[in-house]
């Protein structure tokens, strides 16, 4: 049997706050954060979002970065979460470490602002900050030295797929540890994109609700530190939990719609359970993808019923807290799932009142306090890029 992969650190920032402590507190207090945007320059001010409170300048200040440094918002958010992940894990580059970053927006939030200026030779320093890998490179400087680094872009499952690649790199001995996750800032580009698809809610979203209209976009970043159990033990790391299983599949149906039988989501959850050697009744909580769109929530419900039958574990979507942080969602929600496991609680699915008629599934509506042993988190993306990860209480080998 291959060696266990353990989680030894984490970091997060989203509209509910910066840091794991603030995040846990907001979840437990059921604090709401979805509202009008303050920093994003859009005419769609009636569309609520989960925007991180800090401006770029405030983030730079918090990070100790000069205010004139060329850096876009996506890597700034990433740095906030990355710093915390490094400090909580106390990981150093004495251990061979990979950095796997998930993002899609990249530097678009500045490119859309300066696009016409670029052609006149102004703000051209942001041209090479546009692509997804550019941000990864900048963020990597926070750590001594990464041996291997790459960027995954599978839309809303980018960060979950980063977790998966990191684990596979450790399993095959390419590295001993990996910092994995994702980051995404709001941009006018994807706000308008989602709006053109008519899937944005004009009030705080209500995942799994009968009358749901759409999702709220959010922004943020999350990273977790994963490593080989023996390496973590040898360096005396604080082991928070295990990454016990995961799977990446494809719905292979449509770019933005889900197949009737939710093949991708069904296979992602089923294969993750197989990978973790767990039975369906061993999952204590599912942090659902639950975007709030009728397409996702109906089809995720169908998939949950296919996988778990009549005994669906308690589940909730935390996107009513953070909004849909797109490429970061897999990491933001991995950190939330790890906190749930660590502190024994199930976060509430805010805004829910009536179940979807066809499936009748009822999420956890008020925070529950209970011991959890195995937690599953789902991330489904455009193009049917569907992934599930399972985190479990640490059992020393």
């Amino acid at each position, binding site marked *: 049997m291959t060696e266990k992969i353990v989680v030894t650190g984490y970091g997060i920032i989203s509209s509910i706050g910066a840091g794991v402590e603030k995040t846990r507190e907001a979840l437990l207090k059921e604090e709401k954060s979805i509202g009008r945007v303050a920093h994003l320059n*859009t*005419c*769609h001010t009636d569309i609520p979002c989960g925007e991180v409170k800090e401006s770029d300048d405030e983030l730079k200040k918090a990070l100790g970065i000069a205010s004139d440094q060329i850096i876009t918002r996506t890597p700034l958010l990433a740095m906030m979460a990355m710093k915390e992940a490094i400090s909580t894990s106390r990981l150093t580059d004495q251990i061979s470490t990979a950095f796997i970053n998930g993002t*899609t927006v*990249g530097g678009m939030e500045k*490119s*859309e602002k300066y*696009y016409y200026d*670029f*052609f006149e030779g102004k703000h*051209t320093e942001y*041209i*090479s900050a546009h*692509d*997804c*890998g*550019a941000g*990864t*490179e900048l963020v*990597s400087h926070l750590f001594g*030295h*990464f*041996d*291997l*680094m*790459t*960027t*995954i*872009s*599978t*839309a809303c499952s980018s960060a979950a*797929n980063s977790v998966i*690649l990191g684990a*596979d790199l450790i399993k*095959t001995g*390419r590295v001993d540890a990996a910092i994995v996750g994702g980051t995404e800032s709001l941009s*006018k*580009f*994807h706000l*308008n*994109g989602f*709006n*053109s*698809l008519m899937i944005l809610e004009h009030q705080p979203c209500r995942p799994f609700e009968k009358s749901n209209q759409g999702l709220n976009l959010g922004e943020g970043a999350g990273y977790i530190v994963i490593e080989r159990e023996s390496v973590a033990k040898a360096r005396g790391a604080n082991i928070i939990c295990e990454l016990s299983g995961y799977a*990446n*599949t*494809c*719905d*292979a*149906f*449509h*770019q*933005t719609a889900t197949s009737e039988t939710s*093949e*991708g989501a069904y296979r992602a959850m089923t294969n993750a359970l197989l990978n973790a050697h767990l039975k369906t009744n061993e999952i204590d909580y599912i942090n659902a993808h639950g975007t709030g769109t009728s397409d996702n929530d109906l089809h995720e419900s169908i998939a949950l019923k296919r996988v778990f039958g009549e005994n669906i574990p308690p589940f909730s979507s935390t996107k009513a807290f953070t909004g849909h942080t797109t490429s970061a969602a897999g990491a933001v929600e991995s950190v939330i799932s790890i906190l749930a496991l660590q502190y024994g609680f199930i976060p509430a699915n805010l805004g829910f009142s009536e179940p979807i008629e066809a499936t009748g599934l009822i999420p956890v509506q008020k925070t529950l306090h209970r011991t959890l042993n195995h937690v599953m988190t789902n991330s489904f*993306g*455009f*193009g*049917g*890029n569907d992934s599930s990860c399972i985190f479990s209480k640490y059992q020393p080998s």
Partner: protein
Amino acid sequence: MSIYIDKAAQISIQQPLCNEWFSNPSMPTDRLCKFVRPDFKQYISAAISRRMGTALKCTLSSASACVSEEKRSNLDGILTGTGLGSIENTENFLLAMLEGEEGLSPSNFMQSTHNTLGSQVAIAFKCHGYNITYAHRGTSFDSALMNAVVKFQLNEYKTALVNGVDEMTEKYFQLFDHIGFWKDRNVTIEDVRNATSPGTFAGENSVSLLLTTQPSEQPLCELCDTQLFYRPSDEQLKTCVEKLCHAFNINRIDAIVIGNNGDKENDAEYRRLAQLLTPDAKQIIYKHLFGESFTMSGLGIYVAATCLKEKRVPAHITMDNEALENPQTILVLNHFKQLDYSITLLKSC
């Protein structure tokens, strides 16, 4: 377990979906060279094709040319590298949005995400396997290839499709021009053999490789491994090559593919490393034929695999302008701005 490159297909600025470049290459004469388009109708129905951007049509065509119909839904993974995704669609949506945020059509947005290319292949192939897209500058393709190798090493794969796709629009070309990516004139083979100034020229590419543990009668070559590095020391790279040679029982590397593109700084690093890692190997160049893009390294693998299959490295792709007969082992080296590096080892079957 051995991994084979069973089939390979390319669409680029050379004749598409064939190896005309090997014996009868066309010499690029522009600073921005666009795809030579294949007959898309062979691979995509006209009704669907009309709504698709160029990069997507090329991806579907090279992928389809690579994988026979009966194998498509059984692929264990479809892994794609693209530095910029479908920038044609991204630009269309961006320009419309900058005109006004009301009444935008979603079709360009839907095709703008990087993973559209790989997931559309999965949709066309009805393939529910692992599906991933890498967008990490000059090692986007290499990341996808490495991920595939990792999955083979974990015994999770029997077959996988790896794609490397990038297009270049007029507008993006201009933007990159502002930051010194391109030369102010066309790039010749002399530039690539001996660069004296900064800048290169732009190409477009869609390259697809079918990897398998159970090869057909005539696979191109064996894929030993792909390793990625970030700011590696020379020692790390040397050790990697030594370890790979040892693991695969190779006592001589016959040729090394280097990514010279006419940019002085870029090419100096390749020359230095080729000398360091494989001082006796024949040096193969390819970017004078294909141009530069974030995933052009996929063509580097394609060129090496083709040479192994044809048992010949033609003179027009070597640094010393002399052909090499019967190569058995080829190392493919890639670096992006001396930050990200990859090493791939191929051997003949």
